[in-house]
């Protein structure tokens, strides 16, 4: 399989100031150089000294954008769905809800699977975070949060802790105890601090690092033990609403989506924005697929009859199917390659807030504003995993 075509990250002395640090590989007048992030900032400011006006800079930026668009278009020799015509249709799925998890007193805003494929954590507007054994419907833990609208929650890879946050602008980690009587809230550890609401959080492949996204327009990587900020990611010009890690264990990137209509791909080690995808105001209610190697959009998933926005997306294990949770209370399942809708799931009585496929792909869980979660299953590409949707 192809290696990722990101900038190779180097670590060592900066070409400008000689301090050892993670280096950004940039091109200055077509010459490749390695600058530390501080020197990059300084260089950006030097443009001011040259007496260039904002207008002339903007012109330069616009012409570069056009040139980039032209270059990319040259490689667009065929459409994905055209090439996909030769492969077999995915057999009609009969998907049934197998579990309905009731217990939240208000809208369920977020959920995450445990690596054991059966447990999951969910958070709600009512300020509660519940850990369930989805298989037995057993509620194993219930943690009351000090704020309402707990918009993000995540399960640690070891299964021994959960993280959550929302309107409190923080992300807190709770170790899960086997002792049912133990007060989990007392063991709370405040890890992340943002200046606006927490919109998303996820552990990296370790219990010791958490990645967060916030309404303050930034994402950040934190050391859980000390609460120290390891890396911050600046670039979005509006609220960041979601994030997702690259699925590879050798990968070091993640993607974030913001209200500035951009999906940015970041290198976790340097904080550098390595790729960016933008969408347009007029494009609503559809999902778009971007390939990182082609650096452009390769498919759009939409239908005239879908007039409500998408809130959440996830791929099936092979990447052939795409599950989308919509504000019209349904889940639409798309054939990623051919571009058509394969199936629709009804059942929720209010909008779907989160959709996640279980770690081994055996089921998909949907969380909804109708206060429930549903686990459904069927009777039967890491470099493409940038996905964007607009609500």
């Amino acid at each position, binding site marked *: *399989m192809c290696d990722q075509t990101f900038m190779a990250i180097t670590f060592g*002395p900066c070409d400008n100031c000689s301090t*050892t640090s993670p280096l950004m*590989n*940039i091109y200055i007048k*077509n010459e490749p150089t390695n600058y530390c992030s501080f020197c*990059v900032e300084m260089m950006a*400011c030097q443009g*001011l000294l040259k007496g*260039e006006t*904002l207008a002339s*800079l903007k012109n330069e*930026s616009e012409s*570069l954008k056009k040139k*980039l668009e032209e270059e990319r278009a040259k490689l*667009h*020799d*065929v459409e*994905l769905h055209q090439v996909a015509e030769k492969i077999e249709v995915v057999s009609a*799925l009969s*998907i049934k809800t*197998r*579990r309905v998890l009731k217990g939240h007193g208000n809208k369920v805003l977020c959920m995450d699977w445990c690596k054991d494929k059966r447990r999951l954590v969910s958070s709600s507007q009512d300020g509660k975070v519940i850990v369930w054994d989805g*298989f037995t419907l057993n509620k194993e833990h219930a943690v009351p949060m000090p704020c309402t*609208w707990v918009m993000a929650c995540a399960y640690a890879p070891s299964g021994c802790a959960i993280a959550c946050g929302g309107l409190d602008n923080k992300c807190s980690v709770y170790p899960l105890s086997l002792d049912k009587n133990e007060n989990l809230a007392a063991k709370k550890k405040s890890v992340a601090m943002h200046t*606006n*609401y927490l*919109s998303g959080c996820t552990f990296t492949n*370790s*219990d*010791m*690092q958490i990645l967060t996204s916030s309404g303050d*327009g930034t994402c950040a990587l934190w*050391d859980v*033990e000390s609460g120290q900020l*390891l890396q911050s990611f600046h670039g979005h010009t509006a609220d960041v*609403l979601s994030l997702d890690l690259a699925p590879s264990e050798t990968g070091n990137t993640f993607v974030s989506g913001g209200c*500035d209509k951009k999906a940015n791909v970041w290198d976790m080690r340097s904080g550098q924005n390595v790729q960016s995808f933008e969408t347009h105001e007029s494009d609503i209610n559809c999902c778009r697929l971007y*390939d990182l*190697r*082609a*650096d452009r959009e*390769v498919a759009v998933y939409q*239908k005239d009859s879908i*007039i409500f926005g998408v809130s959440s997306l996830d791929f099936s294990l*092979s*990447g*052939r199917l795409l599950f989308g949770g919509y504000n019209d*209370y349904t889940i639409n399942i798309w054939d*990623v390659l051919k571009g058509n809708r394969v199936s629709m799931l009804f059942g929720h009585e*209010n909008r779907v807030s989160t959709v996640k496929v279980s770690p*081994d*792909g*055996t*089921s998909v869980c949907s969380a909804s504003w109708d206060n429930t979660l549903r686990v459904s*299953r*069927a*009777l*039967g590409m890491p470099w493409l995993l940038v996905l964007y949707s607009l*609500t």
Partner: protein
Amino acid sequence: MTKIPSVVTGADIVQWMMKNLAIEDPAEAMHIGSLIAAQGYFFPISDHVLSLKDDSTFYRFQAPYFWPSNCWEPENTDYAIYLCKRTMQNKTRLELADYEAENLARLQRAFARKWEFIFMQAEAQVKIDRKKDKTERKILDSQERAFWDVHRPVPGCVNTTEMDIRKCRRIKNPHRSVYGLVEEGTQSHSPIHTPSHRCRKGTKEDVEKEILFLNTQLDRHCMKMSKVAESLISYTEQYMEYDPFVTPPEPSNPWTSDDCTFWDLEASKEPSQQRVKKWGFSLEEALKDPAGQELFLKFLESEFSSENLRFWLAVQDMKRRPLHEVAERAQEIWAEFLAEGAPSSINLDSHSYERTSQNLKDPGRYSYEDAQDHIYKLMKSDSYTRFLRSNAYQDLLMARKKPETEQGRRTSLEKFTRSVKTSVLAKLPFF
């Protein structure tokens, strides 16, 4: 033809939707129609329940003034005026429902001091209404009622005006009265309506950075669409048999059968042929599975290059540690794998070695990135390909492994008879 003004049947609406939104299934049209009704864009003329029926029930379209897209957030004073107005008119069709009567009572208590003002407004509106044409009044009344059905829904119905709080925070919604009232007192702003976070205007630095970014993107080597498509297709084809939504898992999907055998098998140390096959997809897949990782390590041991994998795993582990443990671990790794005379010395090119030793002067989580990358590529291109051709792997893949117990018994029996022979023969004088 009906005498009722400005109505359309539910069936007509469903038909229209199927035709204009390319919907094949009437159930889907009903679903969307019901949602549009719930939002308040059309409503049944005879009751409060905002949904769509595919029959001859009559519906009316909402006036644009009352559309939800105008982002009304009507205050309770407006609602109080409305309910009050209803009680003033002697018409059975305007009689308050139970929940409305309850709401009115509650509002009377809450607005006790303002009630005179509210009453006056209601009276004024009733007076104006009386002057209107009868039919027009009927239509307007129904539209006004549908508006309140959306913003003060019947208990048990979904409140479609509920907004995602993240959206609330971004939208600056002026609180304006549906009835155009300007109150003397200040409007109460809810604590969540903090000033919206507008996009930052681009400063010169921002544009400079953008130019840098764009230049870098221009120099990026990108793949052609046709190649991308082929790659995506081959990836999904390869993994389809492992995707439970496409290929039912053996023996069954635990969520369907309530039987966890599938999960037990996946976790077992005796991997199935299917699992073993996956290890051949990429080095990453082999390492992801603990059984695969173990087999690969054994293979490397047989080739005397296990230090490569051990180094790689050690660095992965170091990166997963809490920050305060990293520096120490980094030094330990150096001592074990890279220092002069290290017990598990790995082979790095001089450039990477230099760089890494520089990094170790101020050890951090990424001190070994170069080295790790180098070693991984080495394992991938060299050892991994040999591993896939090795007997150990091929035997498992082809399930050629002879039953362990039978073989075990045979060899131990052989050993036993041999040893008996030797000892017996040794005792005989002439051997």
